[in-house]
């Protein structure tokens, strides 16, 4: 049988040391991704360290600088429905609720969501070549079905996309990921947390071996007045984004003071281009202005056949979502297009 060791961690330190006791030590939180990967024969933990007893990771608390700390073990739904999140970071709330299903979001945790793996068909099929799963074996997606795949930041080794919705909002909000590992605690800005595939597609992120995510910290600026998440997908629920856009705007006197735009479904990480946001500052929020930002965000985008449509779709989605952000009250449930 597929035997493994299991321990329920009682403290952060114990979790970190337990996971290091075996070469294939892994944390388990909601298990909604890990168990699937295991069943598909894609991961083989020898030591499972259960984080669900760590009450210190299960809180949402206010930070002195006006920000908010989201415990790594808080469920996606509990986060989305938390009054402080809904009030100050409605963009995050909507984004989380656009993902998966209620049942999955009840189990899925914030830490686990950051670490969910790609949904590339070939990655999930142990019998297919895949550089992410089996480095050096090749990437059949490049010449195969790549409708779901990346148009930005991809490499000749991997064109997979990172599927999380939540992280797209976290990128727009410039969250910080706090981690504790064998070497102690550190903070990773969300922009540096996920990485592009390059020559090492097996690595999704910059988390070190055995490092535990303890929280996701949100800065004080939450774009509560002007924000929107738009998720375009092949059906209205229970599907990953083909293209998604999280937009946050601060507007004063009819002009944009501060803008954030992050794209999901297009790259190996949430996609942001600072110049695209800078160009919006001091402009009126018009489709033309967002079109300019879109051109910068999508500069250098490449299609691989089935996913060519994403380039134009993303452009239009950026424009639409910019306009949707002006009046969040018009937004439809499930992050569907509105206005």
């Amino acid at each position, binding site marked *: 049988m597929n035997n493994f060791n299991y321990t329920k961690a009682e403290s952060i330190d114990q979790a970190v040391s337990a996971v290091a006791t075996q070469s294939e030590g892994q944390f388990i939180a909601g298990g909604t991704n890990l168990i699937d990967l295991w069943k598909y024969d894609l991961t083989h933990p020898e030591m499972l360290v259960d984080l669900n007893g760590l009450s210190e990771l299960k809180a949402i608390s206010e930070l002195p600088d006006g920000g908010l700390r989201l415990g790594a073990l808080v469920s996606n739904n509990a986060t989305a429905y938390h009054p402080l999140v809904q009030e100050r970071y409605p963009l995050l709330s909507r984004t989380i609720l656009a993902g998966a299903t209620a049942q999955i979001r009840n189990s899925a945790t914030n830490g686990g969501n950051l670490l969910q793996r790609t949904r590339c068909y070939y990655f999930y099929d142990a019998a*297919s070549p895949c550089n992410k799963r089996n480095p050096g074996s090749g990437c059949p997606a490049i010449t195969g079905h790549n409708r779901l795949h990346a148009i930005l930041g991809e490499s000749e080794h991997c064109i997979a996309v990172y599927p999380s919705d939540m992280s797209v909002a976290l990128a727009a909000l410039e969250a910080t990921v706090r981690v504790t590992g064998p070497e102690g605690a550190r903070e990773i800005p969300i922009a540096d947390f996920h990485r592009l595939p390059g020559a090492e597609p097996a690595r999704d992120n910059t988390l070190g071996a055995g490092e535990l995510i303890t929280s996701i910290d949100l800065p004080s600026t939450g774009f509560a007045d002007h924000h929107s998440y738009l998720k375009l997908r092949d*059906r*209205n*629920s229970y599907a990953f984004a083909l293209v998604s856009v999280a937009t946050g705007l601060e507007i004063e006197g009819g002009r944009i003071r501060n803008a954030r735009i992050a794209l999901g479904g297009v790259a190996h990480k949430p996609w942001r281009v600072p110049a695209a946001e800078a160009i919006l500052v001091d402009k009126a929020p018009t489709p033309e202005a967002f079109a300019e930002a879109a051109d910068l965000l999508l500069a250098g985008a490449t299609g691989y056949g089935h996913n060519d*449509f994403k380039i134009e779709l993303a452009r239009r989605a950026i424009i639409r979502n910019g306009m949707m952000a002006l009046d969040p009250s018009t937004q439809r449930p499930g992050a*569907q*297009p509105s*206005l």
Partner: protein
Amino acid sequence: MNEHEQIGQPRRRIEGARKVTGQAKYAAEYNVPDLLYGYIVNSTITRGRITAIDEAAARSVAGVVEIFHHERRSKLPGFDVIYSDMDAPPGSPFRPLYDANIRFNGQPIALVVAETFEAARYAASLLNIHYEEESFDVDLLTNLARARKPSKGLATLIKPLPPGPRGDFETAYAQADARFEGHFHHGSQHHNPLELFATTTVYEGDGKLTIYDKTQGTTNSQLYVSNLFGLSFRDVRVIAPFVGGGFGSGLRPQYQLVLCVMAALQLRRNVRVVMDRAQMFTFGHRPETIQHTRFGATADGKLTAINHVALAETSRFEDYNEVVVNHANMLYPADNVALDYKLVPLDRFTPLDMRAPGGSTGMLAIETTMDQLADQLGIDPLEFRLRNYAERDVSADKPYSSKELRECYRQGAERFGWSERKPTAEVNRRGNRLVGHGMSSGIWDVIALPGKASAEFTADGKLIVSSAVTDNGQGTYTVMTQIAADELGLPLEAVSFQYGDSRHPLSPIQGGSYTTAVIGSAIKAACRALRSKLFKLAQIMDGFPLGDALPEDVRFVDGAIVLKKDPFIRVSLTDVIAFNHGKSVTASKSNIPNIFRLKQYTRAAHAASFVEVEVDEQLGIINVTRAVTAVAAGAIMNPHTARSQILGGMVWGISMALHEETLLDVNLGKYINTDLGEYHLPVHADIHDLDVIFVEEHDDVINELGAKGIGEIGVISMAPAIVNAVYNATGKLVQVFPIKVGDLL
């Protein structure tokens, strides 16, 4: 009193409560004692040979009992005909574990049997298979040059090949005032019933087996198993009381049945084998099909020329065929017609009937082509169809046994508000969404087959009717009970329908929308025979309570035989049984359709769907906001379960038009979205306002019940209506299905 107390009434499913409370047991849920568990191993290559199977690691797993594969299996017959089943297309049926040859990706190549499911699954993952790979061809598009005529066989009796040409198509097309040429394509689709294919075999000893199987035909599985393993037909009993959806996937015995029975016979133990979801993508499916249409019409909207050609995938070993191109000329009486249907053999498994096989594929091309012509001519699509309404089937030169399609058009259009549709050239906006209206006709042939049933009236006043037929969830159980209840004038509670067991009278496989007609008629016949026996007994009862009444002078009401002219004169059926010394009375009857009479008519159910879509103008996201389907399918036995059938069909149509496709990687030779996360079906958020109308239709030709069957007709008109609505909204005709996000940018 009305003789039809039950037929035509909206009755809830008798087994509904059992199903929603988890008490209904499916094939994998029979926990017989001392059960062994088998786990199937499938080929990871597409074509070639197995050169070696290294079992060492798998065998070392505690609890592993045996590993079966081509080198270690029970003797299997060497003749194709023995592997044939009731739905086998012409060719050489696949033989599980027969030899080292790999013919398709996902081919079952081994069965690991263990004391627990977990041990079997784990050991299966350790089985090390060595292959010698050969090059393969799975791509339909690049192999069209190899297209050839399908071979004929038993299956082509029910699914006829296209009729020969009529008139002179090329000349008529060249002379037509309006012409449209379409090129359509859809990929493979897999049935994916929720219940996984599963078999639990109980080894009874003495060569006897009781098999709980997921199937749409208990007799079919019984026949197949007894043939393959050289068992006596009577010693094999197949039971499938509940079937968690079939949609055609259970029309042929699937490979888990063979492997499970093989293990049970060899090990002399009870064995269960269940497929996993990915394995549900390793057998029959709706074939990928390419279609070319060229239709021509006169300026005043008369269709003059029809050319419809379909090219579909099949396997290298069987010629699966379906009726794709025959319907255009059945519906629209053009005089110049050229039809063709060809197959391209590929290194993929043989396709299999999937809900509305052929019809849903062909009508997608036919009905979108019709709308394109209507658009060119500036005629409303409904009006265009009315101008080409076939009062008679010119393609076969026969009258229709009945046809209320015109009434479907009228009632559907009225309920939908079709008159508000705007021509495609006019933009119809709702905010930033474009609104489109589309419609389509639907047609499904009525199939007649023989069926058998028995009926028994028991001492405690119950009527038991039986047939081997299955109920895939449509409501067969309830409807058969209703039919029997009416025949003997009993309340539903007094009737018990026994089904899903090969011990009961023989039934054809449950498909093609014919079950109600075939088994319902047999039940009616059996009950009538029972009635006459009961009446004969009543006639000779002490005191002659019915006097000299003849059969036509009485009716069966409320559990009694009652004199029509004086309802106070009655004999209760339980008194009849008492008179019969308390012995129950039985009758058994086959219903053989009068093929000679039936053949004089074209027999079909019809439908019309009307659909509204909203398409986001910039983003191209489509929502089917409302739809009405009007159905003319003869007598409706139970409007409640019938409505569910049509609603399910409409959702299926939405899926076909907008969601469903098994993605084939032609380089790897395999399907790659083999789970329900990535094989997209619509979810609740995709389904909005659906409405169903049953149009009254009387038909005394097709069968005694006047029922045409409703399993497929709900599917057929929906997808083309959506495609037409999207065209009406956007002016864009998508011809590769499903229509995907991005296609309308």
